[in-house]
């Protein structure tokens, strides 16, 4: 429930400034960055993600730490599954229906 997933920002969406494209492992999804201060993050930065939102900016060492923590808790697959499941604001042309 309180999964916090580390991801790296690839770019800030130009069409919607509160969205960042993020890499989590091999999965690329959009994440909302509205819970961070304006301009707090930029491409290359690492963030902790929870239910589609960036909770906090972290550094790379913390990101690795968090990833290993998820592995230690047996929750790394769950985390990837969650991020893969974010379907809001997919890049154009990649919209996929939420599964029924």
């Amino acid at each position: 429930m309180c999964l916090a997933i580390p991801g790296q920002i690839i770019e800030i969406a130009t069409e919607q400034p509160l969205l960042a494209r993020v890499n989590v492992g091999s999965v690329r999804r959009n994440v909302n960055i509205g819970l961070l201060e304006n301009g707090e993050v930029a491409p290359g930065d690492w963030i902790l993600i929870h239910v589609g939102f960036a909770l906090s900016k972290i550094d790379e060492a913390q990101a690795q730490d968090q990833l290993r923590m998820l592995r230690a808790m047996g929750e790394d697959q769950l985390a990837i599954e969650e991020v893969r499941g974010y379907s809001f604001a997919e890049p154009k042309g990649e919209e996929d229906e939420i599964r029924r």
Partner: protein
Amino acid sequence: MKYVDEFRDPRVISRVAREIARTVDPARRYRVMEVCGGHTHSIYRHGLRDVLPENIELIHGPGCPVCVLPTGRVDDGLTIADRDDTILTCFGDMMRVPGTKGTPLELKARGADIRMVYSPLDALKLAQQNPRKHVCFFSIGFETTAPSTALTILRAQALGVTNFSVFCNHVTIVPAMRAILDSPDMRIDGFVGPGHVSSITGCRPYEFIARDYGKPVVVSGFEPLDILESILMIVHQLHANEAKVENQYKRIVPWEGNVPALRAMLQVFELRPYFEWRGLGFISQSALAIRAELSAFDAERIFDIPGVRVTDPRGAQCGEVLKGVLKPPQCKLFATECNPEHPVGALMVSSEGACAAYYRYAMRAAVET
């Protein structure tokens, strides 16, 4: 990443465990509550109970969102899915929480339109995709999750979406800790404070626990070493007759919390006068409701919610386990009628629930030894 590996290196762990064993007073009992379900999960998964001295008792706290949600609220929320013109959405954990008529998953199998989402923003998107339906998000969670719901509601307002609402069940951790401290049958010597919740709230909200109740609070990370270090910090405070809030999880938790997230919560939510918690009863000012100015997004104002109160299933002792009065295996239904495949009570549903964690890890260990 050497720094990181240290958190689970068995040698480092046993070194800290030995230090705890050396430090504790054998004539004394230490009752430490880990507030957060994530800590409960980690404690069982890594067998930390077994490396701690006998006289340190770990009591599992109320920090598991699905566990503390009373059955009446589950039933209330599920009435929204009774209608033909609605789609009810919730997180995966919630899909398996039993209501009186079944879990959301079972109701879905019987034809109700209930869908799992990973983010409240997915529920909002579903509303945009289904303009002829009303999409309601059954929101649960502590301060870690509440800001995300808040921003989703603000986004719905900004987009002018009129077929989206939230059935709000967000709760706040501090009033629950106060209720536990005020409860006559609970004697807690110190708290391992929640990790991710504190990344939003910061450490200040716990200061009254040290000041007014004289109990140490150490905000902790989730690695085995984090938890052991936090316990050691609590023991040191107790021995020094000190009570203060310390932050063991500085790498993630800023002392002042996440200001934009707190701002979003303040903008969208107000405190309910009281809210029912499973096992803890009604706690005043312990939960969030959507502010009147955003009532267009409040499922409790849009729908006729019955407001039922339901006692726990016969024989299930979720309340006692939640209060730490009983250990999971002391419940009459544990591992017989109630198991992770067929949970009778919510504590068996979530990996953060004490019963599910005990079932998955401690039982297996008991069988293996």
